[in-house]
């Protein structure tokens, strides 16, 4: 499996040349979706307006967008950070669930601890659980050379049963009517940085994670080895980089980020473990990572855009009765057209 399309290809020469294919891809994707929505007899312009502007019409819509931005960015990074080393992590969903379980176990068992202690422990629990969950495919890759693509996906399915077990057998909340645990300790809940409408601190943690990934991959030796491994594993090996070990490290780092996204869902959003809390964040995260062409720094910007579309999608469903899944088709089309723009450029010999 080649990563030709996605490998970070040096510095972008000019912003316009980088942004133009995106604008075109978005326009074409919207045109296709518009034709589809129109053919179903809906008002196309109103649908566009709903998708694009719901996030900016009310403070609530905007905060909702920022809240969605958090798991999307972290899930996308869980995909793009291993990709930096040429590894495909399709297991962000399982890592999110493992992280959510880790956070809940800590948050429930140590519920009495004060916030200063409990909150960092809850988040640490999620990061470690996510990293361990990804370390299994990492180890299988290192020891037996089994493709990480399949093992990371299969770990997702294992996590679905695990979360069900924890939520129905270990600490079930009998009043919930859906597999749910009792709440974590008050101290483990993420405080809000904006009170009304509420925005939890996970937003800041996400920005920190983005900054960490950026600094690590561009300004540190370890990160440089990661990039070198992804760019040309053979050359990296010749220069004395342990390529196999770095592949594992890349997966574990991705798992830690995926785990953090689960921890934040528990500590910031639900305050308990709920089956299904992973939503469709894996799909959105990977689509985000693909639109960003694997560029870690581009991820938060793309994720913000996808968050706008997603908030628009739920409004679309509420006000116009157009199924929200419509939007994931738009996003997949954007991916195809963004990737297609590379083909066109190569074809022109640029």
């Amino acid at each position, binding site marked *: *499996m*080649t990563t030709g399309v996605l490998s970070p290809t040096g510095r972008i020469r000019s912003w316009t040349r980088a942004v133009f294919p995106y604008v075109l891809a978005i326009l074409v994707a919207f045109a296709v979706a518009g034709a589809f929505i129109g053919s179903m007899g809906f008002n196309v312009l109103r649908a566009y307006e709903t998708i694009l502007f719901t996030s900016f019409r009310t403070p609530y819509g905007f905060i909702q967008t920022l809240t969605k931005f958090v798991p999307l960015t972290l899930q996308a990074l869980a995909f793009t950070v291993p990709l930096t080393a040429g590894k495909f992590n399709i297991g962000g969903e399982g890592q999110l669930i493992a992280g959510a379980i880790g956070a809940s176990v800590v948050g429930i068992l140590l519920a009495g601890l004060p916030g200063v202690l409990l909150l960092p422990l809850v988040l640490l629990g999620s990061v470690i659980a996510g990293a361990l969950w990804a370390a299994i495919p990492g180890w*299988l890759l290192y020891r037996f050379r089994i493709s990480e693509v*399949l*093992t990371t996906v*299969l770990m997702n399915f294992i996590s679905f049963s695990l979360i069900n*077990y924890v939520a129905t057998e270990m600490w079930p909340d009998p009043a919930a009517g859906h597999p749910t645990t009792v709440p974590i300790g008050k101290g483990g809940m993420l405080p809000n940085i904006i009170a009304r409408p509420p925005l939890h601190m996970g937003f800041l943690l996400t920005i920190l994670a983005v900054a960490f990934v950026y600094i690590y991959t561009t300004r540190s030796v370890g990160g440089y080895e990661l990039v070198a491994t992804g760019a040309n594993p053979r050359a990296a090996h010749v220069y004395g980089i342990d390529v196999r070990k770095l592949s594992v490290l890349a997966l574990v780092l991705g798992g830690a980020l995926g785990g953090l996204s689960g921890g934040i869902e528990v500590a910031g959003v639900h305050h308990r473990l709920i089956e299904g809390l992973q939503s469709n964040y894996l799909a959105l995260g990977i689509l985000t990572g693909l639109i960003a062409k694997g560029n870690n720094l581009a991820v938060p910007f793309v994720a913000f855009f996808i968050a706008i579309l997603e908030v628009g999608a739920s409004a679309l469903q509420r006000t116009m009765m157009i199924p929200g899944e419509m939007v994931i088709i738009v996003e997949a089309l954007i991916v*195809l057209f963004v990737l297609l723009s590379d083909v066109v450029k190569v074809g022109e010999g640029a």
Partner: protein
Amino acid sequence: MHVSQQIITLARLVILTLVPYVLAAQGTMLGGRAGVFSVAQEGIMLVSAVVGFLGAYYTGSLFYGALLAMLAGGLVGLAFAYFTTTLKMDQFVIGLALFFATAGLSTLIYKIAIGVTLKPPLIPTLQDIPIPLLERIPFLGDILFRQNVFVYFTIFLSVGLWYLLYRTGLGLEIRSVGENPLAADSLGVNVTLVRYATTIVGGMLMGLAGAYLPMAYTGTFTEDIVRGRGWLSIALTYFGGWAPHTIFLAALFFAGVEVFAFRAQVTGIGIPYQFLLMLPYIATILVMIPGFRWAREPAFLGKNYDREKRGIS
């Protein structure tokens, strides 16, 4: 119940369960032997499960439903072939994008057609059609020849694909395209045509695998109907050594684990059912350890062939 009767019941169940794995894995294998490697199985199976279900629901015929599901799978295969073979885009990335697109599409189609209902619409499930004479063979007759038509098709397909790939000139051409498209091309094999054809037919087989799920098991469509069988079929293709006959045999293991996990849930053996549900995935990860060693994948698996550049792109 008599012990031999129990064994027959279990074996029947294994054969019944094997069908979607084999169909999807043979589809993966067929495209793969020509060098086109799709990872969209899970999505194709989802979208064709919904198309097959709705087709059968509206036409009142499982046959037309299955046909429509094959058409849907073939269309996704065509799109995949176009993006990879014609446009030379990364096979894995396109496969992922198509997986998410088709998975989203499946829910979308169901919502548009049916919407949210208290009682989901139902289709009749497949009937067993005993084969005259053969059904009278002791043991084997019960296990193999009193099954539904998908089972017969799956056996027939596996034998047919083996014959095609290893006993015909066309099969040699298909394999040569996956092993060395440059050499195949210079000998006059139409690489593009072979890749399109195998990818489209492969997509149709995955489509049939998807349609089987509502038609044989549930009679209705739910979002979690495929439950990773598409991804498992990729592992099965490796475990089955990228060859039709060994894939069929290897599928016995996959189906066996699923049947065991299911039976253990029903009878209850003291293990929480959640851990039994994990079993197929854990078992698959475990068999991939030897599976990845002995499977020799086609040399050009996942690589596009660019005639202009006389090599991969």
